[in-house]
């Protein structure tokens, strides 16, 4: 069963010929397909007593926010600023000496093939996990949106990979891909290989396995989020399309996909941001090997800091990583804003 029919399709404005549908949104406090509050519902809210901060009680507001602001500053901004500063110094992790290096750490890491290999690996890993998790999540969401017996149970089970601790996920998959694991057993039984494929030890396959395991752990988030978006789509649109003679594929292609697009895009961007700075899955599966085939920037930074004790180098790598992730985050905000504007015609 679909969700509230009174919730307007928020992206109707970006679907050609569907602008009229945006009219309904203004009367309800709604959450749209992208998980963003429908702007109309805020604009037309009944007149209320002004909150205290609008009444000029600035001291109250400042003091209320102060503890949280201090906490966030200490826990987030100070470490970031410290890392940023450290990237301009050479420092032995153990000795904690400070020798100014200017941009030396950055020029050194940029000249290091290991850095570019890790950067490239990070891109491949990010694209791979994002696409696989996105695609599988979309398919699962579409399946779970259809009524069938036991759907509630299946929905609960789908979330399972996302809530299992990473260490358990990794060890289970590691065993499954070992020569004694089920993957090689299956390949042997169908005669593809006799001795088994060294999945995690062969640089041709290791990244593929890392991507698959990460995507398996992450697709439930995509599926559940898209399912929520699907549940918010109005039946009336589909009923109208069916009356107009649209086929099932046509309804999926021309209605479902465009309506899901904003949520999907946001999820993909979030996933890309998370994936590019992922450490634990790769570290536990391959340690960055074989021969650096799955080494990504966080692993390289970790090795530099606590293996080679070059904290300055590690900080420069971390700062570069942070800048790239910040670019992705900016893209995320821009896309989010664009979607909001498109949805609400502002």
């Amino acid at each position, binding site marked *: 069963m679909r969700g509230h029919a009174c919730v307007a399709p928020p992206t109707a404005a970006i679907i050609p010929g569907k602008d009229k549908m945006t009219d309904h949104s203004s009367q309800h406090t709604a959450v749209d397909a992208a998980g963003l509050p429908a702007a109309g519902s805020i604009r037309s809210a009944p007149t209320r007593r002004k909150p205290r901060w609008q009444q000029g009680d600035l001291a*109250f507001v400042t003091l209320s926010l102060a503890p949280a602001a201090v906490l966030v500053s200490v826990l987030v901004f100070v470490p970031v600023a410290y890392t940023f500063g450290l990237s301009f110094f050479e420092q032995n992790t153990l000795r904690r000496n400070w020798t100014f290096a200017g941009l030396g750490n950055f020029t050194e890491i940029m000249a290091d093939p290991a850095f570019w290999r890790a950067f490239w690996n990070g891109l491949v890993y990010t694209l791979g996990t994002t696409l696989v998790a996105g695609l599988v999540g979309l398919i699962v969401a579409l399946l779970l949106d259809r009524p069938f017996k036991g759907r509630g149970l299946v929905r609960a089970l789908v979330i399972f990979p996302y809530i299992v601790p990473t260490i358990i996920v990794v060890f289970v998959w590691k065993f499954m891909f070992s020569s004694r694991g089920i993957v090689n057993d299956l390949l042997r039984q169908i005669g593809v290989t006799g001795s088994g494929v060294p999945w995690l030890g062969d640089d041709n396959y290791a990244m593929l396995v890392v991507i698959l395991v990460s995507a398996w752990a992450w697709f439930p988030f995509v599926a559940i989020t898209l399912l929520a978006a699907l549940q918010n789509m109005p039946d009336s649109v589909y009923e109208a399309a069916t009356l107009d003679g649209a086929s099932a594929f046509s309804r999926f292609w021309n209605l479902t996909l465009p309506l899901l697009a904003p949520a999907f895009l946001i999820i993909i961007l979030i996933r890309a941001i998370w994936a590019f700075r992922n450490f634990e899955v790769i570290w536990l599966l391959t340690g960055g090997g074989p021969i650096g085939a799955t080494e990504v920037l966080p692993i390289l930074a970790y090795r530099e800091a606590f293996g080679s004790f070059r904290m300055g180098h590690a900080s420069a790598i971390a700062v570069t990583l942070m800048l790239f992730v910040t670019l992705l985050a900016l893209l995320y905000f821009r896309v989010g804003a664009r979607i909001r504007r498109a949805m609400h015609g502002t």
Partner: protein
Amino acid sequence: MKHNHPFRPFALSVALGLTLSFPVAAQDVRTLQIMTEEISPESQAFYQLAADAFEAAKPGVTIEIDFQGNMDEALAVRVAAGNPPDIASMQLERLLTYADLGLLEPATWWFDKYGADVVPLASIPYKGVYWDIPYALTSEMWWYREDLFTAKGIAPPQTWAEFLTAAAAFNDPDNRFYGIAIPAGPGEWTAWHYEVFLWQNGGFVFDTELRPTVDSPESIEALNFLKELYQYSPPESVTWEWWDSIDAFSAEQVALSMYGGRLLVHTARDNPPLAEFTRVLDQPMGVMRAGPLSRKSHAIMANSPELDLAQAFIEYLMQPENLLPFLRTVPVHLTPPFVSYRTSPLYMDDPLIQLHPEDMQIVYDAVEYGRSLGWESPNHPPNNYAGALNASNILPQMVQRVLLNDETPEAATAWAMAEILKLQAEFDAQSAK
């Protein structure tokens, strides 16, 4: 509605913060922090018992034990955070790094008292000073399946050629049984298997001036031999690390596997019938006999605020009635660092040792020809590049290039030479600052 004072939330949060941040008044409580890499459940239980007994004997003393599987990185993190433990377990390569940076207290006080009884090479002086107190020695040996060798009428191998013949004879991939365990994962364990054959072939990673020599003819030969052996290793050994060599043996997947006595302990636990047929070999004879030796020790970190307490606890741990039961938590693997303890019934009466007491002599003898990257021969100085080289993964990658990527040993060693020289230059530049 009651009007709250605007400062009330702030005042409450400040009050709460102050309450949480002021410790309860301490009554002469002294805390000793220990970080150790002895993480087997039995060893952990022993440490805890020892700590409890020590605390009971010294009221007001609390001992906190931090068990760490990845000691190198865990200790570095604590030192970097300005919160080092008072006592840390050491291996030679780690010790050289920390001693070099002035992060350790000398162990002269202990060697002055007990040094005469210490097994030779159990601790290596660096810059003329002993920095650590050895609590165990571990010789990495080859373990073999006596039942299989007997059934096939093959004598336990003693030379490189015999090793190769034996590995080939037992290799049966169709039945998923393999001749020998040769790890090729990305970690240090892979490098150890190369170093074994390098040393046996008369080669070294560094010469006596600490210049890299991994491109020597002896090294090329060792890599070629390793590759020959590797064809008889299970396919998944491409990712193997330390414990995989044990698992492969105890799961009856291989006929030969290198490890310390922990392999016997785990086999007895996981596959009891196999323990009786789990026998140890001398390292194979190349140009000479050589094998890896782990020196396990405690060191007191520099500027420990509890120096006297740390010394007292280490002395307490090293008493035979404490140390020998501790070593028996992983018998054969953890062997006594004192000559006088080696024959003690407190150690030798262990049932696993008594399975084949004659094997214990092979393990003890292996200490005599034991090497490590931090000290490759009696002619070498302690090598303070060893820790950085281990951390860099250059040697495992060199081996992987040969075993997995089919690069020639000449090409792989040329790459490794360039990388080691670069690493040394960076290390020297950093040390000079």
